[in-house]
């Protein structure tokens, strides 16, 4: 079992560009959550996808959007990149959303995005 995989591992973009990050959940998991971890801070919840729909959303602007595919994999898209979007983006998968999923979610290693 490969666990949660994310691609790419590192990415450099310039301000105003758009970026797409990808996540494959752990085998058997159907729920994907995305987090942003800025340098020196803890992860911040962006949103969660289940059954190809956004189920929960944190305090992030509409520039952050996502998608979940029928095979449960997911993409995070960020438009009009800002310098402040530079961060480690973590994907986590779990089995079904709902109370307690945080204890059973598996995190991927993350994608480090640098915006110049």
């Amino acid at each position: 079992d490969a666990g949660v995989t994310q691609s790419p591992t590192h990415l450099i973009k310039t301000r105003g560009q758009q970026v797409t990050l990808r996540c494959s959940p752990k085998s058997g998991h159907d729920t994907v959550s995305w987090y942003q971890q800025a340098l020196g801070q803890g992860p911040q919840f962006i949103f969660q996808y289940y059954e190809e729909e956004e189920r929960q959303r944190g305090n992030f602007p509409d520039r952050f959007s996502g998608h979940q595919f029928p095979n449960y994999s997911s993409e995070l898209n960020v438009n009009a990149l800002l310098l402040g979007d530079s961060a480690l983006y973590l994907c986590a998968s779990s089995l079904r959303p709902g109370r307690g999923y945080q204890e059973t979610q598996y995190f991927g290693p993350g994608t480090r995005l640098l915006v110049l």
Partner: protein
Amino acid sequence: DQQVKQNSPSLSVQEGRISILNCDYTNSMFDYFLWYKKYPAEGPTFLISISSIKDKNEDGRFTVFLNKSAKHLSLHIVPSQPGDSAVYFCAAIDYNNNDMRFGAGTRLTVKP
């Protein structure tokens, strides 16, 4: 808006001794608390949790204590082992509002 704070960025302890990692929160609506451990180049992994209706939860070498009146929780690791060296994040959940917040993490180094 740092509702969850880990005021010690780093902690160093000797192998076999106790490690105590601290976490403070400000939002009284938080009703569930978790600790995650993160090794370099890996994602965080769940370690232990505690409900707000309890004041202690123990799992092997790991014990989490919750002091609701002080809005403070701590993670005790006894005895500490070199393999425990990692960054530890505390997190708090307000289930009523679907809000989860993480602290900034504490880097623990256990010296042999």
